[in-house]
């Protein structure tokens, strides 16, 4: 038992060592600026459990309104490590060009107070939410991030979708960095497919080549593990009692309505094409991912989420409602 305790302690020290902030290493990294010559330099993001929790709770608290905040942390080679996050007193980040401007004074005050309190990490990025429409950067987001990367490197953009988080049962999060103006990125491997609503698809498509996504991983300290266990002990009843079927009704209705519009659009396209009258050699090659196949994938995704919700309801009904004393 003593050797297992020692092993556990060693594992805890290994996990907790990431929390150590080395001022000299960070200063050297700031001086060397390895990201200047390689737009693709940062490839990974490590987010602490605490920062993730705070960001997701903040995003969820905004409801259908976009919220925004900053992240504090450090860099380690080609990874950006996010240790903590704090909310900014702004809302509706997609509705104006520079929503951050309202919070400059707050940001400066907060950073100064943090330093005084002994928190040495700098601001390494910003996060905002896209309630219900996926994790990607809009035109406004891309221009904001480009500006940040010009003057505040290293800087990261994180997008969280709180509505899809509830629907899917896992955190919908994306971390992005933009390319410099005029840079032509090499052909990227296809990123994970996500549903984009029809009213946002243009904004998504125009700017999707101007940024790349980073791999996101998470870490937690030994104290975090203990606290999360306690939190689970307190809230497991609420977690099991809730149902995405009931809580996310509006979102699902919106998704189905969006799907219907996309189907109409696809049908119009198919009818207007002269494909059936052309000879096979004149027929244009079908793109790999036709609109109809995307729609099919979207409908499958919606259905799978609904079926998951129904399964949990049925299981709870059998377990707790079918037994009579």
């Amino acid at each position, binding site marked *: 038992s003593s050797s297992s305790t020692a092993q556990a302690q060693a594992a805890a020290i290994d996990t907790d060592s990431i929390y150590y902030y080395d001022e000299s290493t960070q200063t050297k990294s700031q001086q060397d600026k390895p990201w200047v010559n390689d737009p693709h330099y940062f490839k990974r993001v490590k987010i602490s459990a605490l920062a993730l929790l705070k960001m997701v709770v903040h995003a969820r608290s905004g409801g259908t309104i976009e919220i925004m905040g900053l992240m504090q942390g450090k860099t380690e080679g080609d990874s950006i490590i996010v240790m903590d996050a704090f909310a900014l007193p702004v809302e509706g980040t997609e509705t104006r060009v520079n929503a951050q401007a309202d919070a400059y004074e707050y940001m400066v005050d907060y950073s100064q107070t943090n330093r005084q309190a002994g928190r040495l990490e700098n601001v390494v990025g910003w996060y905002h939410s896209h309630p219900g429409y996926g994790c990607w950067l809009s035109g406004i987001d891309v221009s904001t991030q480009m500006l940040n990367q010009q003057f505040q490197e290293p800087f990261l953009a994180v997008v969280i979708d709180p509505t899809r988080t509830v629907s899917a049962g896992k955190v919908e999060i994306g971390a992005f960095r933009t390319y410099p103006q005029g840079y032509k990125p090499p052909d990227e491997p296809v990123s994970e497919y996500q549903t984009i609503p029809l009213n946002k698809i243009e904004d998504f498509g125009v700017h999707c080549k101007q940024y790349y996504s980073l791999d996101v991983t998470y870490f937690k300290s030994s104290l975090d593990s203990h606290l999360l266990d306690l939190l689970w002990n307190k809230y497991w009843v609420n977690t099991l009692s809730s149902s995405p079927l009931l809580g996310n009704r509006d979102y699902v209705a919106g998704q189905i309505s969006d799907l219907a519009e996309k189907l109409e659009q696809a049908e119009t396209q198919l009818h207007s094409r002269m494909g059936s009258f052309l000879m096979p050699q004149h027929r244009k090659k079908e793109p790999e991912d036709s609109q109809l196949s995307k729609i099919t994938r979207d409908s499958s995704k919606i259905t799978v989420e609904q079926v998951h919700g129904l399964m949990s309801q049925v*299981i709870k009904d*059998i*377990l707790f409602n*079918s*037994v*009579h*004393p």
Partner: protein
Amino acid sequence: MDIEQKQAEFIDYFVKQAENQKGSSLVNVIVEATSHPSLFAFSEILSVPSIIQLQGTEFSVYIDVLRLFAHGTWSDYKSNAGSLPPLVPSQVRKLKQLSLLTLAEVDKVLPYDLLMVELDVSNVRELEDFLINECMYSGIVRGKLDQLRRCFEVQFAAGRDLRPGQLGSMIQTLSAWLSTSDNLLVSIQDKIKWADTRSELDKKHQKEIEDRVEEVKKTLN
């Protein structure tokens, strides 16, 4: 669970008191226990040898009182009031609280009319005051008062002492619950196996189709 933790030390206290007393002094212990505002369980006290020895003595009526508080209701007391000693107001309040727990055992939705009859309460205001102040605040019951439908929806009620013969039905219910859960687990595992098998068959089928398409393309070329 909270109510059990709260009354555990009082049960221990009164059991020790009962063990150390004899004869007439036990009567005071019984009266004190049945008047205590935070004690709703009396099986442990009932099983103390010195209490059992009161049977057949001049104080045996107090064992009946203790049994009444362990298993009975206010209506039971009223119908046997002649053979039982008079109760002090705190005992009356306690017995009414315990009567509510008995009613909640049978039905989760308790109409105000039934409660007013069973608890000897003359109006709705008095009933609601009793339910809120004496029952909900003491933690023995949790629920919702529906004034429109004039009923009390019980979400949680503390358990009373078990009556003889109740254990059998409890074991039956637990067994039924266990077999339901086991069957559910088995069916979930079956469904997982079925889904895996279907997925394998679909992949195989898709591969066969693709191979055939390639074959036909080669033949055409």
